[in-house]
């Protein structure tokens, strides 16, 4: 993130791989929006009222605008043609405003996001008073001990 950057946060309490927020974020990326930084997702697990609570917070660049242009002609096509266009990156690149190009971009973004999410584990969020700490699940015992001591 950069100083003065406008950030749009999108938060929900579901695992990102299950959440309907993830496809929405993928659709936004496919449309031309962008993340606010290199670590756009904060995925945490904490105890709330004795039960686990998952919180996923996406950070998107709120300063970007996107223009949708209806720059395609009405047409009727068969599935084979739809498939040819959908599978052709070249065709999609040459027709960036066509709905099929959007669908292909959405599909690619969603697949790529889901692959990254599968490799991620939620951070453990612990609180003490007004302080809190985020602990990676695979943190070394000495790292956890240091975090514990910093929490007081």
């Amino acid at each position, binding site marked *: 993130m950069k100083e003065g950057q406008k950030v749009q946060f999108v938060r929900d309490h579901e695992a990102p791989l299950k959440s309907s927020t993830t496809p929405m974020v993928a659709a936004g990326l496919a449309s031309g929006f962008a993340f606010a930084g290199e670590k756009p997702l904060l995925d945490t*697990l904490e105890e709330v009222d004795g039960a686990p609570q998952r919180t996923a917070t996406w950070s998107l660049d709120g300063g970007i605008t996107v223009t949708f242009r209806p720059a395609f002609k009405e047409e009727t096509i068969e599935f084979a043609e739809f498939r040819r266009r959908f599978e052709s990156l070249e065709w999609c690149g040459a027709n960036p405003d066509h709905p099929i190009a959007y669908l292909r971009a959405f599909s690619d973004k969603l697949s790529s996001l889901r692959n990254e999410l*599968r490799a991620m584990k939620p951070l453990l969020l612990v609180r003490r008073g007004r302080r809190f700490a985020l602990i990676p699940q695979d943190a070394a015992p000495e790292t956890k001990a240091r975090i514990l001591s910093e929490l007081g």
Partner: protein
Amino acid sequence: MNPQDARMQLLEAAIAEGPGELFGLKLRPVSLGTLNLCRRLGLSLVLHHEQAGLISETERQRQVMLFVWMHSAPLTEVLGAVRDGSWDTPFGAFAESSSELIVPEVIAEIRRVSQLVDAALVEVLPKPGRSSDDEAPGDILEPGFTASLVFTLARETSWSESFLLWQLPLARALQYYHCALRASLAWTVKPGPPVQAQINKLEQWAAALTPDEDDE
């Protein structure tokens, strides 16, 4: 007895806290200063007393000895040794001469004091709505726990730093700190579970999440 009455009884009991005696050794009270030493020397038996059962017998014995040494040896000797890292020498000599210390009795004393301390602990609940904290920069630094308590109590009472650190029993210091928080209209509530207990529970929940189960 309801939990509120039990808490009140412990708070009132803490008012009588002071120096003690174990096996003929005069002990200074467990105070803000000795809690700080317990942290520096990693006395998990005191800091996380609820997990005492997880500590090995040898380590338990070592920590019991350390606890008694830091509360009974001359304060200047303890502070000097902890400050320059040479504490294992005087502590070793103490442990040699006090090997007959009865561990269960010391652990019972730690548990007794911990109960009084736990009853006095509170957390400040942030008030809803905008506060000056909302506009504070993210990299603002907070003072240390011990300094924060000593500063607040000294400001409110004019008691000396030395008294607050080494003579005022921790269970009373925390109650007076609570009074200062309430006098400043802070919302104080029962603290959440110990951090280590939170981590243990979260790790169990996290272990039950696998990418496949997580997936739709």
